[in-house]
């Protein structure tokens, strides 16, 4: 039906596998993002021919407020701008922006809200990393 496997012969997944060096993370959130990206794209150490650089921005927004002025729900909104460049030529092979959000409740106790916040960050980084990899596989045009 016209679909070809990404990890199959000629697919972008196989072409990029272990060929991409992801930018070094600089914060706990970025560590989770890079960990998932490396899990999908491989480490790309000495064999790397492409560099994936990114800018991560997250923002916590109060989502719902009760009539007694208590915030009961937060959304963690994340945006990542990424660029995939060929290392020797420096030519940009793919770039884009992905965004998404995860929610957590704040009606529980302080430690429940804290656990929710940390877990929301972990889930958001997984979602953003998956979106980047999906976009890469679908839109990258690798030089011959």
């Amino acid at each position, binding site marked *: 039906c016209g679909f070809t496997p990404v990890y199959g012969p000629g697919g972008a997944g196989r072409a990029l*596998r272990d060929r991409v060096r992801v930018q070094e993370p600089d914060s706990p959130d970025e560590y989770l993002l890079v960990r998932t990206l490396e899990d999908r794209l491989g480490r790309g150490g000495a064999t790397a021919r492409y560099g994936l650089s990114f800018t991560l921005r997250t923002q916590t927004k109060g989502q719902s407020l009760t009539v007694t002025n208590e915030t009961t729900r937060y959304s963690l909104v994340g945006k990542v701008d990424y660029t995939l460049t060929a290392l020797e030529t420096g030519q940009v092979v793919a770039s884009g922006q992905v965004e998404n959000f995860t929610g*957590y409740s704040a009606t529980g106790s302080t*430690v429940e809200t804290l656990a929710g916040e940390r877990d929301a960050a972990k889930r958001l980084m997984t979602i953003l990393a998956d979106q980047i990899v999906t976009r890469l596989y679908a839109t990258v045009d690798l030089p011959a």
Partner: protein
Amino acid sequence: QSPGTPAAETAQDQLPAMLVADQVFITPERQLVAEGNVEAFQGTTRLSARKITFDRASGKLEIEGPIRIDQDGRMTILAEAADLDQGLQNGLLKGARLVFDQQVQLASLQMVRVGGRYTQLYKTSVTSCHVCENGKPPLWQIRARSVTHDQLERQLYFEGAQLRVLDVPVFYFPALRLPDPTLDRASGFLKPSIRTTSQLGTGIKVPYFFRIGDSRDLTVTPYVSPHTKTMDLRYRQAFRHGGIEIKGAYTRDDLTDDDSRGYLFATGGFDLGNRYKLSFDLKTVADDAYLVDYGLPDYDRLRSEIELTRTTRDSAFRGALIHYDSLRDSEIEDEIPTRIADVSYEHRLFPTRLGGEFRLSLNSRAYERTSSANIVGRDVTRATADAEWRRHWITASGLRADWEMGFSADIFKISNDSTYGNHVTRSTPRAALSLRYPMTMTTGTGVTHFLEPVVQLGWSDVHGGTPPIDESRFVEFDQGNLLALSRFPSEDAREDGTALAIGVNWARFAPSGWQVSASAGQVFRSVADPDFSISSGLAGKDSDLLLAAQIKNASGIAFTARGLLNDSFSFSKVELRSDWSHRRTTLSGSYLWLGIDPQESRMAEVSEFWVDGSYKVNPSWTATANLRYDIASDNATYAGVGLIYRNECVTVDLSLNRRYTSSTSVEPSTNFGFTIALSGFAVESGTEKYRRSCGKS
């Protein structure tokens, strides 16, 4: 020359100017007459004129205009005629105009430059507004008997200054000092603002900025109204590898019976080198309603935190000390954990022969309730060690198989709770195999479809005691943890038994930049887990169906939605979020729907939407509005409208906000704000310039 002038500067003044011209005519009296594209250069000063006559005996230059003198790029003098010395530093200019940053203009009949540093202007008009040729007065101007500009200190001293709006005198200053616009950090008044709230009445805030050297400053803002006298302080200090900011206020008002109130927020961050980063964020407030009364950020819990992190490609360390001070009526302060210590470290290893990845992690969290009563005063210290090995293979046909197995050991030390032993230990082996088969298809028109079915068979077996679940009562289920082996947010609860997770991801990328993506997922369990609440969507043997979708284009439109569809085909949770910006309109909003769930102590549905938009009526006027509406209890919690008029020389900001929430310590209040800033002298924000048209308006 004041003694303070750096020596280099004085030497440079002595250097004579260099002259370039198309033609130089030497008169019998040995005067040099230069004509045609005449330019003279001296240090950072550049003068261009139509004709310059240089009398070598006296060293004077007689210059015929139009003259333009550029001083290090940010100050420009335009004049019709001038007599200057050979260093272009001293002399008299006629019909002169002094312009800063191509915006603020000082126009005067006569300008005298003295000592290469001072410029005196007589009968001056100062404005940053566009002056129309049709003789209409600019929107605002400061007329002054004389203005002296000190080029070194970059200050403007006005004498007999009158602030005129549309040529109507509005304010009179016998003497006024303003920093010249090229000075980025100068002590002085910042833009005043008027604030009217139902509780405090109409008050005025007049901030004054003290510059303390290059790396420190203090802003003092008195705020006076019929009901309050407040002194607001903000102190900032920049270090080589970090910075701190302390904000606070001391208030005496008649809203409460205690005689003084206030708040203190201190934040800061330091780069300690070797990738260690230290940050702190401390908050304290005198009483629960202060933040709301004075329009400060609307925290309902004050969280103070000191955090140290170190992140590299293969390791992440995070340590934090957190203190909570709850402002919520519904919470009894000493029965909620207010002191929390948290540390986590993960390391990733990549064995070459074995392949795959080892993830070793240690984390520990201790939380304490100030009450030491039994059960309600429970304190817990928890530590977890976790080791995991994961590896993936890809078959020739493009199927990707991920194998993952791991083991975790938890130990809990519980005090002030007789229902639990002093220690609880647990050990949990786990393993999972996930299969993915991502595919793409590109149609003739360049549209690419992406389709990825995913299936995971996971198993985990919890051995040992059962600790109190203090952290993991609220569980979320989305694409981020569809394939997680334990979907509880923290280690105090773990999933047990075998679970089959299936999912499908689809996306469509059009060359026009439009992208649509959708995901679905569900988890089937061998044994239902009682610790999952209904609205988590993971209760029972079959989880709710997770549905998620996103529509996005390259030019600012993004709509993201996620929901959990339960087996009676109704949603137990819906979250929508959208941003939409299109030429003159920006609109962002969100919607939330949560079902009733006693386990999450939610006795009524939560159904609320929030919308925030702005519309640029015309280049100068922008209207903004925002509304937060609680559909379940059918009334608004926040509403606000705003109007901003901005042109090249003034920014007027009007805002009206109404908060409807009320509690024992907080009453509903309406808040009206008005600020006016004369741009050129106010802090520049935003990049575009809007020019008021010279027409009839």
